């Protein structure tokens, strides 16, 4: 079977308008842009430019202010400033023209000579916007991305209709649940998609949640309960953070997968289930096996088709596309027409994104909320520097500039949560005494510290069992 390419759409060529009567500059600038994949249109006067602008749309317009028949400023009325990144270039850096440009919300204003680094940055910025709005910037089943994501999409389309289990491996925030949803939607299965975070359900409840229970099977089992497997019958069960599932439950899970039957807690009957299993982990599976977190026999059963999701830093071309998509969704939801300020996309592209797509989405949302007008700027320094930039059940990533006190506080609550509030185990893992943990908790509760993270509140509570 050949890989499917029928869904791929060619990326459109990005367009550049250069308005300048200096032939030497124009030809050179056009050549550089051509090398970068742009389609070029040239005009040497205001009149020529107005003529070229009729019915045309440009991703980037480079306009000299001083033209033989007037000012390049006159062209601003003819340009779609929302869709065209417009740059005015002047050899006369007068304050008046700069101010006028700012008043007109021109994208950029540059005093000659245009430095090549700045020029290539402008081209790259325009290219990102251009590709973000091109048909290839597909939002296929919520999975936004260009060519780097195409192999994943192709794989989903091919494997979805087949009766094989899928193990998705990817860092936190890369969109593993979106992939599971896409698999389910493409599978044609008539049942529901049931998503479970194995690390978020208390271990003592996980068995009854997964497999169900009979009335009276344990204290609090007031009625019969159908577990996630039964709820996902003829559909798909998505088990996230599979390596966080207790080992004894992994044995039960393996049995369910082998027999295609499930037995409720406290029950006697084996109930047939027709469930497509998709599981996910942000750990390296082999490492999880070596560490004893994942049974090897279960791993082989879960990963009949392994699927790897690339981190955002490995798909830099998608960053602008994703940012524009998140902003477009916000604009659509709230009926606004906000757009990114100049250089925002270039700055986003330079960030490392340890929290992946989730981090980017949260950043855009915060920037949207904090924006004063229609222009959205992003300041990495002021984007809640105290907040961790990536966090899951067993790891936490901090931004440079987070205070040591804050790191200590977060790490303490995270570790307590990880060990189910067992302070002895947490102290051992942190290399401190249990007394130190109690002292810290007492200090935080006395108000010296700040509120514990919301997901760690339970961990901070006094637990009689710990």
């Amino acid at each position, binding site marked *: 079977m050949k890989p499917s390419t029928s869904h791929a759409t060619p990326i459109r060529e990005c367009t550049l308008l250069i308005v300048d009567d200096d032939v030497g500059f124009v030809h050179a600038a056009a050549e550089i842009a051509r*090398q970068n994949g742009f389609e070029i249109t040239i005009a040497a006067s205001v009149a020529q430019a107005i003529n070229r602008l009729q019915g045309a749309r440009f991703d980037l317009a480079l306009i000299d202010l001083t033209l033989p028949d007037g000012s390049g400023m006159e062209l601003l009325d003819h340009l779609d400033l929302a869709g065209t990144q417009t740059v005015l270039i002047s050899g006369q850096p007068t304050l008046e023209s700069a101010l006028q440009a700012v008043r007109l919300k021109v994208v950029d204003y540059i005093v000659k000579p245009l430095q090549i680094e700045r020029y290539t940055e402008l081209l790259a910025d325009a290219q990102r916007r251009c590709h973000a709005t091109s048909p290839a910037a597909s939002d296929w089943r919520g999975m936004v991305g260009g060519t780097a994501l195409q192999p994943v999409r192709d794989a989903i389309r091919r494997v979805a209709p087949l009766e094989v289990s899928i193990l998705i491996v990817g860092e936190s925030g890369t969109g593993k649940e979106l992939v599971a949803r896409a698999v389910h939607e493409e599978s044609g299965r008539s049942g529901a998609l049931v998503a479970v975070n194995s690390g978020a359900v208390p271990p003592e409840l996980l068995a009854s949640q997964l497999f169900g229970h009979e009335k009276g099977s344990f204290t609090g089992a007031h009625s019969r309960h159908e577990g996630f497997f039964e709820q996902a019958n003829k559909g798909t069960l998505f088990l996230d953070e599979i390596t966080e599932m207790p080992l004894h439950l992994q044995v039960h899970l393996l049995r369910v997968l082998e027999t295609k039957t499930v037995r409720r807690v406290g029950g006697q009957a084996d109930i047939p289930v027709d469930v497509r299993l998709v599981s996910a982990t942000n750990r390296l599976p082999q490492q999880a096996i070596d560490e004893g977190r994942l049974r090897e026999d279960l791993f082989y059963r879960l990963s009949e088709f392994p699927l790897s999701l690339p981190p955002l830093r490995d798909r830099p071309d998608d960053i602008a596309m994703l940012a524009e998509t998140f902003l477009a969704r916000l604009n659509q939801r709230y009926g606004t027409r906000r757009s990114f300020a100049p250089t925002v996309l270039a700055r986003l592209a330079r960030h490392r994104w340890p929290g992946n797509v989730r981090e980017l989405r949260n950043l855009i949302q915060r920037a949207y909320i904090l924006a004063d007008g229609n222009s959205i700027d992003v300041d990495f320094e002021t984007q809640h520097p105290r907040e961790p930039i990536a966090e899951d059940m067993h790891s936490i990533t901090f931004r440079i500039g987070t205070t040591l006190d804050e790191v200590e506080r977060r790490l303490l609550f995270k570790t307590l949560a990880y060990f189910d509030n067992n302070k002895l185990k947490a102290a051992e893992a942190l290399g401190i005494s249990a007394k130190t943990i109690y002292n810290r908790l007492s200090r935080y509760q006395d108000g010296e510290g700040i509120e514990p993270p919301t997901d760690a509140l339970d961990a901070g509570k006094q637990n009689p069992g710990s």
Partner: protein
Amino acid sequence: MEKKHISSRGAFSEVEHSIHELRNGMNSLLMNAAVLSSRADDFPESLRPFLEGISRAGQLCSKELTHLFALIESRKT
């Protein structure tokens, strides 16, 4: 390089006009140098240092031009 008409706001001083033309010239020089640098592989090995020389000299002139303009502006005030 007599290139453009004088602004309708009034005549430039001779110095300002020269600076303007110098900026246009530098603009063209730097961009042409960048094209040559992007095609450096097409040039014989022996000529490549000269390509780098053009770019380097262009950058230096550009920096000095900015400095010169700042000096002239400071004299005005």
